[in-house]
């Protein structure tokens, strides 16, 4: 297994005000799989991704990548293997940096050469017109910004992408383009995806297997066929499925 989440717990705050965002969650993702986590607000799904990146206070359990438990502080090597694509393209790009500067930043941090070619190639890979290279985020549409965010995540050629609601902030037609892009990239680069969303249709489309979360716990784990075939066993999963009914074929 490439990613193993083993009885993970994340708690914010202390004592009376403590919030248990993640409670004893376990699942495993083999290499090259696309695994989805679906749940509503407050279910803890995004917190799991942050915990993997070292951005959330883990209070129990372990996270293993390729069999190795992750150390307390994430190393540079970690960033070369795992990258995150955030939800809001308006918030995750520095407003005063051009596309070129944003894409070159990871290369500079990791002292990688070939800035020019790499930036040009990254833009091509995500379908961004080269004339946007020196534009600023406010001069790009939502879909274009999200492509920059994806390009940035791929600059270091990681194996794993953590995707936190990558298309929630986008219009339906733009969402389709970005989802297609993500599917193509995964295939071309043999990537492993761990994708979080509240949208069951998006998860069904993009993922092979998924976990349904509620209140910090995994309620049920199922594969795509089971989901579409109405094979959900837990009442909460069924309720979620029913509420998303307008999204079924």
């Amino acid at each position, binding site marked *: 297994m490439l990613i193993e989440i083993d009885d993970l717990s994340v708690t914010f705050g202390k004592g009376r005000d403590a919030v248990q965002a993640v409670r004893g969650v376990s699942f495993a993702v083999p290499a090259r799989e696309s695994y989805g986590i679906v749940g509503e607000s407050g279910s803890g799904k995004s917190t799991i991704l942050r915990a993997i990146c070292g951005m959330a206070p883990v209070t129990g359990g372990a996270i293993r990548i390729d069999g190795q438990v992750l150390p307390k502080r994430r190393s540079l090597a970690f960033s070369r293997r795992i990258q995150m694509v955030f939800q809001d393209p308006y918030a995750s790009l520095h407003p005063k940096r051009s596309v070129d500067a944003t894409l070159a930043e990871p290369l500079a941090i990791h002292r990688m050469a070939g800035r020019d070619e790499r930036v040009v190639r990254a833009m091509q890979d995500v379908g961004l017109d080269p004339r946007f290279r020196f534009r600023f985020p406010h001069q790009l549409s939502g879909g274009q910004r999200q492509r920059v965010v994806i390009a940035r995540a791929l600059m270091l050629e990681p194996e794993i992408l953590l995707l936190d609601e990558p298309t929630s902030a986008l219009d339906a*037609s733009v969402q389709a383009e970005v989802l297609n892009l993500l599917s193509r990239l995964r295939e071309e680069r043999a990537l492993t995806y761990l994708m979080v969303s509240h949208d069951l249709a998006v998860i069904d*489309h*993009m993922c092979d297997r998924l976990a349904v979360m509620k209140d910090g716990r995994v309620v049920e784990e199922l594969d795509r066929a089971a989901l*579409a075939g109405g094979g959900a066993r837990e009442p909460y999963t069924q309720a979620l499925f029913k509420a998303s009914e307008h*999204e*079924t*074929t």
Partner: protein
Amino acid sequence: MSLLEVENLRVAFDTESGPVEAVRGISFGVDRERVAIVGESGSGKSVTGRSILRLVRPPGRVEADTMRFDGQDLLALSERRMRAIRGQRIAMVMQDPKFALNPVMTIGDQMTEGLRHRERMGRRKATAKAIDMLAAVQIRDGARVMRAYPHEMSGGMGQRVMIAMMLIPDPDLLIADEPTSALDVTVQAEVLAILDDLVKERGMGLIFISHDLRLVSRFCDRVLVMYLGQIVERLDARDLDAAQHPYTRGLLNCLPSIGGERGALPVLQREASWAE
């Protein structure tokens, strides 16, 4: 005579780089029925909703050949007379209760504000009415909610409070601008069911503004599809699958669905002709 009649509505915003035409000549009518206005960002749907309530201020310019509510010409009314219509006869529910509710007033104060000022109702009577209205949106511990502040409530509660607040004066027409977009999908279903009951019970007209074509087709009677400031298609909700316009079809087809094909999603190819 329809409840609301709009003919050739045009809304433009004067900016430094020239006028931006948000709405480019649309005409429609709403009776005591549920009409959806659907479109993506930039379609002009929200601006249309605000124009009806004359909430578009300069540098926005609203013009129409006709904009009549219950026989009254909305564009000709003075601001004072428009205020009597806004809230009382035409109400608006907005997307995110975190931003639409006053963060420094308790729910109770906000809900009773209109009654106490406009109808000069006593505090106790107004509070009782507000609690009744909260019960109508299935908030059982109304007294506690009345004492709470907006930030202390979940999205679903906040939205129900907003609906309750807007329905206290018993308006004839409700404009709901993406009322469930900020809500989780199971909460969305609950809130829509509540809205559905209230609209039917009170015989109100409803304009439901949304980007979610499939959702409105289940909830509304008629659908108007907007693209770049114009209405490109009008259909009965149940005929959505028989939509003709390539933009509507494209929008329907590009959505992923549970149990759908795994291959690439069909992508909308925008034609310049749709903008004419």
